């Protein structure tokens, strides 16, 4: 099977290049990550992140034939050859397929991604009805792989100012939690020409999310909350 892979090692390359690989796959190689590991077994200089190999840890996001996705749950049989692999777009490249995710996590941290409830802790759990809990479905499952934010032109242009779809999905995850008490502070934190409102609903994020989540919908709901409190 044929691959074209983005290579760059600042230790020895003056600029990035594309390297071609033609490797024989085994019947047990089903996913793109299996192929990458096979390539690495013959060329150990190819650097990539990977861990769970089942789509839950979010390590191995990359740009696969032009579209962001997770290597471990992308079937080889679904890919057109040569399979062109590049690092996630819009973030600085550290080496090969490994990007510097500092800016991505900075935006995630900026939404205060933790439950705020300053009431004294009750002895038992805080009650939440099944309907209230259901509000968190489609939000808490995010694996922070960054496929969405690095597919978003608004994030490419303003990674320092626009929170991006992943961060905003998590902002809404806490706004939507019946146990959270910081709604107004959370909305204040996003009331800004860039942080929330740079989303123009082009839905690239929805298109690439490997977990089938919908950040655009969550962003829309945050905008609704903004409107609601303004009137």
């Amino acid at each position, binding site marked *: 099977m044929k691959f074209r892979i983005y290579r760059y090692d600042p230790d020895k390359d003056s600029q990035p290049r594309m390297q071609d690989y033609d490797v024989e796959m085994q019947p047990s190689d089903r996913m793109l990550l299996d192929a990458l590991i096979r390539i690495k077994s013959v060329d*150990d200089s190819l650097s*990539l992140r990977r861990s769970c190999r089942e789509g839950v*840890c979010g390590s191995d996001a990359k740009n696969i034939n032009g579209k962001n996705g997770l290597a471990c749950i992308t079937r080889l049989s679904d890919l057109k050859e040569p399979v062109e692999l590049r690092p996630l777009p819009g973030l600085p490249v550290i080496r090969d397929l490994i990007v510097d995710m500092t800016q991505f996590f900075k935006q995630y941290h900026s939404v205060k991604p*933790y439950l705020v409830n300053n009431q004294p802790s009750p002895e038992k759990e805080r009650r939440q*009805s099944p309907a209230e809990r259901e509000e968190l479905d489609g939000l808490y499952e995010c694996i922070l792989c960054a496929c969405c934010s690095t597919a978003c032109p608004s994030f490419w242009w303003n990674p320092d100012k626009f929170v991006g779809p992943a961060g905003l999905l998590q902002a809404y995850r806490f706004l939507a939690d019946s146990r959270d008490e910081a709604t107004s502070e959370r909305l204040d934190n996003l009331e800004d020409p860039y942080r929330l409102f740079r989303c123009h609903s082009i839905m690239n994020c929805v298109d690439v999310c490997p977990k089938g989540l919908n950040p655009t919908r969550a962003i829309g709901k945050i905008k609704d909350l903004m409107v609601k409190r303004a009137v």
Partner: protein
Amino acid sequence: MAIPVRKFDAVIVGAGGAGMRASLQLAEAGFKVAVLSKVFPTRSHTVAAQGGIGAALGNMGEDSWMWHMYDTVKGSDWLGDQDAIEFLCREAPKVVIELEHFGMPFDRNADGTVYQRPFGGHMQNFGAGPAVQRSCCAADRTGHAMLHTLYQRNVRANTHFFVEWMALDLVRDASGQVLGVTAMEMETGEVSILHARAVLFATGGAGRIYSASTNAFINTGDGLGMAARAGIPLEDMEFWQFHPTGVAGAGVLITEGVRGEGGYLLNKNGERFMERYAPNAKDLASRDVVSRAMATEIKEGRGCGPDGDYLLLKLDHLGVDLIEDKLPGIREIAKKFANVDPVKDPIPVVPTCHYQMGGIPTNYRGEVVAPQSGDPEVVVAGFYAAGECACASVHGANRLGTNSLTDLLVFGKASGDTMIRFLKENPGHKDLPKDAADKTSARLARLDSQQGGESVHEVGAEMRRIMQAHCGVFRFPDMLIEGVKKIKETAERVKRTQIGDKSKVFNTARVEALELDNLIEVAVATLVSAEARNESRGAHDRADHHQRDDVNWLKHTLWYKESSRLDYKPVHMKPLTVQSVEPKVRTY
């Protein structure tokens, strides 16, 4: 070569459930704590846990921590330490409630309480049954929800994470006290000494010693390798859990929660065979029992598929609504990795290496203990371990489903508290020994200058093949003897591995070579310990000694790296406050 030194009150190696529960205690108490992780914290393998956290909340009907304790002792086949098990089960409800207060998105009952599902080996009335609903869950993504919640809480507490740093060796002084670790920043390849007053290992398991494993690539037993090289023994390493339901061929986990919600296993005749092996608990018997039953079915020619090498997990009768509500992740995995939609077709599954019951010996406070002048459990000053890398021992010879996440929360928190007490009583850093980084420098220099060595990939694959063939669900004396010989030969080859990539920048070939140094210690410990244990107990099943032998073998194994020596120590049969659970025949 001068290696930079950074000082902290405490260093935690590993940012999974145990590491982050401990870091929260320390950070919230105002200590300067560094948490090292090979991966961004939410990528730690806790993320892959599916089915739930065991705690006797009693939300679904009557339950008691004493029933939970009984089940855990029985599940451990009496090899678990009963003081630690009492502590685990008594503390479990408290740490689960705390986690809910941190924001964990647990599933809910109509009255707003946390939903709990049945799980293997969890029963009412001190094992008499029927099954109890004790597993607190968030659909089939409990580990994911828990790990993210703990990370989020650590963001709030301003915990200092060193992301993509790999710890390489333990630093001990002449008295044996632990004073820190050496570690490599992966992005730059630079090595530092992290000098601390207390060090916690929360490095997870080493399931990657087997070819077929539910474990992530990062589960390479780094803490065990570092401890073993520093002269600390490894406890009960012969006990590995083979999870009954790994996706055949792929190894990916299918939660026991499927059977908890009503799914069951079938052989090629469409027979629900667990009824023969465990008439009461059936498919919800303990994991070692179910895995052995499955291996027996396959061995006796009742496996499914063209090669008769797997069994089927049926859940379509649960209906699409329940599957979408409680097991959505399973449906996703089955479609992706087994090409079946479980709302229509059964999933092909096979017992797959999943969990390491053994590890670094600790007491129930999280302090690492080792024999010294006749006392089997002397505290190693400044050294702590929690989670899968530790052996408290609450899981003994077989862990019950859901008890791993409980273990992370209970012992993560307890070790954090113990460290806080130690830090308060022992102000000031002790001086680092002059040779603090020598061992690490020598390993790295050897790897960089190695000529004519073998590829890490090939030697690693050989190790995994040996473990798979010689130390699986069923263990045969001749295969064990041969396995010990082969794995020791492989260990010699590991000393001569060579990497092509010599770059300083994010050199994952170097990381994998250093990981193999750790894996091989675990593999040798496992085979040597297994070969010596002449009985069958929990997950260790010997063809030549089919019975448990409490007269000779009701004891913990200790393996030392030095000459691969074995020692033994007694099991703690006495709980902290309640009556001991006396050994008896274990049936489900």
